[in-house]
């Protein structure tokens, strides 16, 4: 980067860490002061959980090129593992349960990633569906997982870190924000390391990657493990901080697709992309229901809303694939460059 002479660089270059640090400062310092509880409960908490899941899936699909349709299964595995660790292991701090839950999700990810050693493309995508159906079946079938609760729906434990209770929407927001920030930072470090470059090499040309000495099989399994770890933790946030209940039904195939859509819309192989995509996916249904209610009034009941959401979402996916295959991130970068250029020339 430094090699580019100043007159060629079209925008003033800030150090890379400035924007994330400012955003974090804003998220920690300003948002809790101005946010309403609706903002936290309905927007920010699902946004954080889905963003993290998007980051996880992006490592597998965006960077390593292995399409997975089973993300929700790993979210479910994480949520239920954390619940059971918390319930059954005396004195284990919450953070410990969450970490172990990530490990469990990663282990399941490796098992269901094994077919990737022989299969590619569509065959692999379909085989990841096995994870989706198997995990959901196991969680519903064996009531041990939900502590023999009659309804299968269980309350999440209270969130607390070293005796300090994180009740209320703002507390849960801090809890989720911290985990997401730490894991996103680690994911960012990972993809800019040698391992990250290995992932990209495997995605772009497996044979070439093997020739230059990248252990392809190990790299693929590593991608499954890391991705599932992150998605598993995202599942914990989804269940513990956002929904406050743990149940298998919420982690269905639609959720898996939703996470895939997040990274397509946001931008494949981009950490930022997951956040852009998740923001759109979370805000867009709310905006659509407001808009529909405003324009059409009573005609716009929840059934119609559901269907029109599906239609608009599907159309968005296709539009993005055709017009902006690199996602919202590319769009955002272009707009920013234009603005800066316009600002410089005046």
């Amino acid at each position, binding site marked *: 980067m430094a090699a580019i002479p100043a007159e060629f660089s079209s925008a003033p270059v800030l150090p890379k860490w400035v924007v994330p640090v400012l955003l974090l400062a804003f998220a920690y310092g300003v948002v809790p002061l101005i946010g309403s509880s609706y903002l936290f409960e309905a927007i920010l908490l699902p946004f954080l959980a889905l963003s993290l899941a998007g980051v996880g899936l992006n490592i597998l699909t965006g960077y390593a090129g292995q*399409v997975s349709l089973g993300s929700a299964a790993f979210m479910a595995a994480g949520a239920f593992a954390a619940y059971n660790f918390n319930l059954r292991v005396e004195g284990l701090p919450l953070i410990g349960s969450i970490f172990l839950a990530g490990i469990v999700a990663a282990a399941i990810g490796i098992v269901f990633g094994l*077919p990737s*050693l*022989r*299969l*590619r*493309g*569509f*065959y692999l*995508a*379909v*085989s990841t*569906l*096995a994870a989706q*159906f*198997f995990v*959901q*079946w196991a969680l519903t*079938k*064996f009531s041990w997982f939900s502590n023999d609760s009659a309804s299968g729906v269980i309350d999440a434990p209270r969130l607390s870190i070293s005796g300090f209770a994180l009740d209320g929407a703002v507390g849960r927001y801090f809890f989720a924000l911290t985990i997401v920030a730490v894991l996103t930072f680690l994911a960012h470090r990972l993809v800019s390391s040698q391992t990250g470059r290995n992932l990209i090499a495997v995605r772009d040309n*497996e044979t070439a990657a093997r020739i230059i000495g990248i252990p392809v099989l190990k790299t693929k399994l590593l991608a499954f493990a890391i991705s599932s770890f992150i998605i598993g933790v995202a599942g914990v946030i989804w269940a513990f901080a956002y929904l406050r209940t743990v149940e298998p039904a919420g982690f269905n*195939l639609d959720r898996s*697709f939703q996470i*895939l859509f997040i990274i*397509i819309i946001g931008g494949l192989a981009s950490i930022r992309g997951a956040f852009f995509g998740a923001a759109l996916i979370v805000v867009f249904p709310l905006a659509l229901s407001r808009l529909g209610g405003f324009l059409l009034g009573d005609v716009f009941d929840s*059934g*119609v809303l*559901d*269907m*029109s*959401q*599906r*239609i608009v*979402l*599907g*159309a*968005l*996916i*296709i539009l993005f*694939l*055709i017009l902006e*295959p690199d996602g919202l991130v590319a769009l955002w970068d272009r707009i920013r460059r234009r603005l800066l250029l316009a600002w410089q020339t005046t």
Partner: protein
Amino acid sequence: MIADFDYQFFIEVLVGGLLSGVMYSLVAIGFVLIYKTSGVLNFAQGALLLFAALTFVSLVERGVPFALALVVTFAIMVAIGVAIERTVLRPLTNKPPITLFMATLGLSYIIEGAAQLIWGTQVHGLDLGIEDVPLEVGGVLISQFDIFAAVVAAGMVVLLSRFFRYTRIGLAFRAVADDQFAALAVGLRLPLIWATVWAAAGLVALVAGLLWGARLGVQFSLSLVVLKALPVLVLGGFDSILGAIVGGLLIGASEKLAEVYIGDYFGGGIESWFAYVVALVFLLIRPSGLFGQKLVERV
């Protein structure tokens, strides 16, 4: 142990499984058609199936005669096929297959949403006029409806494979499947061919939708039969009609047998994932499926 084994029951389960496998094959053929000619795994096939069945039922309920409703629905499916070619496939020509797959995922959302927005979300019964009375063949009870479905499926397979083999447009399909660029270079009209293929897939969706709809009732969950067809495709190979049939039979039979004989050890309900496991285990041995082209997925 062997002496206790109830052969008649075993055969009954097996035949029931094979016949329900035919129903899976019927859905799978729609996928194979599209995959063969454009290399796309068309996830929207289930949505098309739902749309076709829902349109047909709604027309019949509004007093349209059976045959006319069939024709109108088919015409609508053709129109949808052409529209998909125009708006989705053409702008995405020469994009990687996985991009096209995601586009069909978006497409399935649009079609599912539209189908229910237009026709409503209630469950419709569908009566094809076939009595579902079990028939006794050699001491084994077989559902009459299943036999009808099997005959229809067999008819479709014969029709389609003849079509691919002996007609000019069938030849063009195979040329496109073989090499898109070469096909364009010798002057084949790709848009026309794709539109035809999607229309054919629409026809398969209509037939499968009617049979499945008569079985389950016409409702949203009909679009989920794709999830039953996918392991069949993986097993049979995405590009083989024969594979779709054999795969369907294998999956159907093993699923039913497993449910009856080993399901109890797992606490039942294993049919949601068992087919996938069968397909996966099989693929670990033969990565290109039963009849799939070798070079496609070889590592």
